[in-house]
């Protein structure tokens, strides 16, 4: 059907590849911050993820008899990698990330027809799968250097990831619960939030060491992506505004039980989600208003799961749930076409 030549004959030279590379670039500040606070674990995880990605994508493309090179080099898989490696504990055993990526690429992407056809965010699908299958491994987070007093060398991380133990430091000194977990557990034992925030995981601004910095780095990368039009403003705007409104309201009514805004914004994967995960265009709503609604919906769900749900962090589930509403949102948020009544 497609005739070889018909207008337009010119293009702005943007490409999927460039968009995806931009996203990668934007993740670099967060990567460096992460290394600074949590050690080199993440670089090992990243490398593992990349190899898994290349292997699995090649295999799947071959199986689906698609050309390997153009699809492998569209770099869309990199987004999945970024989404996932930042979400798993830096010193998690090697098979965690390998299974996660494999699951994400096969079940989250290729079984639906590959790039552009998957209804669920592959990274979040992989993460949810890991969290349900390996709850113990997934919650053993490396503590920030400031908290544990240890900085893991590259070899330490390497040994931890591949053998599960190192000789120099006892494991329980360097791993522990995430701040989100800490607050939640404390609340269940009757310790109010402000008291927990005085604890050793938090600095003098009552924001968690390490986590806050990584979140801020993501924020900076996110601004860069907004400026280079790699992502659309409606996602972070809808997500962050809703999050701020919710956490501010609850905190204002009941500061004993509900953490303040800055805690919610700067812990867990919040900024990662705001700029790198929910912005995945394939699985999100595509209309301008729809994007905003979609992002707000995720924020509501994240807040609900964080405060009342069974998991400390709810981004993955929130995203997956909102993915299901996308066709519905799209249908009811179509913009007004020029020449039709307002």
């Amino acid at each position, binding site marked *: 059907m497609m005739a070889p030549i018909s207008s337009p004959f*010119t293009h702005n030279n943007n490409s999927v590849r460039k968009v995806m590379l931009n996203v990668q670039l934007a993740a670099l500040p967060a990567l460096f911050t992460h290394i600074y606070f949590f050690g080199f674990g993440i670089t090992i995880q990243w490398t593992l993820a990349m190899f898994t990605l290349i292997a699995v994508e090649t295999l799947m493309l071959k199986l689906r008899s698609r050309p390997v090179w*153009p699809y492998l080099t569209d770099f869309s898989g990199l987004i999945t990698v970024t989404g996932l490696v930042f979400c798993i504990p830096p010193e998690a055993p090697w098979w965690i990330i390998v299974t996660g990526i494999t699951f994400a690429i096969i079940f989250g992407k290729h079984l639906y027809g590959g790039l552009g056809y998957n209804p669920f965010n592959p990274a979040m699908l992989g993460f949810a799968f890991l969290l349900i299958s390996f709850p113990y491994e997934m919650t053993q987070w490396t503590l920030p250097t400031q908290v544990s007093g240890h900085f893991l060398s590259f070899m330490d991380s390497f040994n931890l990831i591949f053998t599960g133990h190192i000789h120099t430091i006892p494991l329980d000194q360097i791993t522990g619960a995430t701040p989100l977990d800490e607050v939640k557990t404390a609340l269940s034992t009757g310790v109010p939030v402000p008291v927990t925030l005085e604890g050793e995981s938090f600095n003098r601004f009552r924001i968690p060491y390490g986590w806050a910095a990584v979140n801020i780095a993501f924020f900076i990368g996110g601004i860069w992506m907004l400026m280079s039009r790699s992502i659309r403003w409606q996602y972070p705007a809808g997500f962050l505004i809703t999050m701020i409104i919710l956490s501010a309201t609850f905190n204002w009514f009941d500061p004993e039980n509900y953490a303040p805004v800055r805690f919610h914004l700067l812990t867990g994967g919040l900024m990662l989600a705001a700029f790198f995960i929910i912005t995945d265009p394939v699985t999100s709503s595509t209309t301008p208003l729809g994007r905003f609604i979609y992002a707000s919906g995720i924020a509501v769900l994240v807040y609900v799961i964080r405060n009342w749900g069974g998991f400390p962090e709810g981004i993955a589930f929130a995203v997956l749930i909102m993915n299901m509403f996308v066709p519905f949102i799209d249908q009811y948020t179509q913009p007004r*076409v020029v020449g039709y009544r307002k």
Partner: protein
Amino acid sequence: MQVLSSLKVAFIKWVSRLYPMAKRNLYQFHGGIFPQYHKELSLSHPLKRGIIPKTLVLPLRQHLGIRTEAKVKVGDRVLKNQCIADTEKGLSAPIHAPTSGTVVAIEPRYKPHPSGLKKLSIIIETDGLDESIENVLAVDGAHPDSPVALKEIVHQAGIVGMGGAGFPTFAKLPEKRNTVKALLVNGAECEPFITCDDMLMQTHADEIVKGAQIVGHALGVEQIICGIEDNKQKAIQSFSKACADTEIQVHPVMTVYPMGGQTQLIQELLGIEVPSEHHAIDVGVLMMNVATLRAIYHAVTFGNPLISRFVTISGLGLEEPFNAEALLGTSFLELAEMAKPKQPIDYPLVQGGPLMGTALHHNNVPIIKTTNCVLANPPKPVETVMPCIRCGECMDACPINLLPQQLYWHSRNHEFDQVEKLKVFDCIECGCCSFVCPSHIPLVQYYRHAKSTIKDIRQKEAMAELAQKRHEFKLDRIAREKAEREARIKAKKAAVKQKTAQKPQAKSSAAAAAAAKAAALKAKKPSATTEGQPVLSARDKAIAAAKKRTQKAKPSTGTESKAPSDKQPDARQKAMEAARQRRNQAKTAEDSTDKAAPKDSKSAQAAAKRAAAVAAAKKRAKKTTEKQESNDDT
């Protein structure tokens, strides 16, 4: 207010240094793109005039509408400005000889059209004398006072929209004065590479202004605004100078594609949207291209028809791109060769700009009234098309605020009802969406395809509906006839009974009927013989009697004599026969079982539908062939 808005503009301009797309907030319409313009290429070389090529090829159709008919024969000598083709049969614009010479052939030739087919054209061998008929339109130079008078001249001069659409201009002008509130002069010229309007405004601003005044005067418009993109500073200057003592306002507008689109420029200059499925004229706006206005000026003042136009010959494949005032009928290739191609032109030239132009199947085609640009861009490696990632770039670029990504999704899946719901018919095929798509999807091609498919489907549906209606009408008629016949028979029976009661000898009912008929006829036409009309012969009577007999014997099915042949296909007839039978069965069954009836009539309906479908299919097949033939000349 003024201060606030200029502050806002300054702020946006500042932001746009960090975030270029912030510029989208500087104008009235949605979306838009900022391509590389390359306008300096053709502007840096002087305007060429007075090129008289050896042969001119003039297609008989250079406008939207129907083809004109040649008024000259092979071997005729023609003079410049002489009308050589016209037609009375419908919307069209006459064609005039661009210079003097001899008609050497009237035959199909390639013309710049996406179909790439040969179309009937007049071929003139020029003699270089350029002898002309002055004031061929016989005007007195006065500005027409009524729209009708203006329309007449414009029509005779063969003027069409020269911005690209090619709609005959006279048909665009309203019949009544004061229908047009604002006349907009389109000097936006937003396509990259093209500078012919720019050049025209720089060199002939006064003529354009006079053309606008002529139109304004004749139509009684209140306001004339000229929109020029702000990358054409020289044109703005010369135009402002020409407008100095007139009521015409010059309005520099943002440089953004597609500013020159009718809907977009109206939005920008007047802040109003033309409602969907309406024309600009419905909101009291008339938009005209600068070249068209100049042609009007020449027609009204000197009586000269449209025989030449400004054309840009440009492209990255040319050493010395230029603008020319070229005679209609000049070959693309000839002009391109004059611009010193960097490499042999063995690739398709493009008519128009890179965003909405048409790639040519044959490069040796003539300049026609709508040709604004001959573009020679050597082919670039084709990017692989990737799947849509729903990034929404296309949506943000669409000047109509459509959802190109959804349109694409549904077009691809052939869900044309969805495509229509997403308002594909409001798409102006500007190409902004394709331009920005990071997946390099040829989106506009999908919309063109979807549009033509939907049109086809609609046509088929209309045909099917017509067939269905005809069929229903026929069933109705048959039922009515049957009822009438039965009534007649009843009446006759009654008459016969009366007669038999009167006559002592009983007759067979058939004979009785015949007799009754004869009697009735006699009674009705007592003077038949005297007036020379044929009397029913005995044979006729017998036939009539026989017919009635059969009717009596089988009242339910007997009425179905052969249906009047209206050239229906056999399949349809069979289906109808079946339907009819079923219907009749239903009728007979009606008395005994009430319940069975609806079901049966349903199946009859189904049969009818089937029959209609078959008929429609047949028509479709026929129509497509017909259409292909008629399309042949678009």
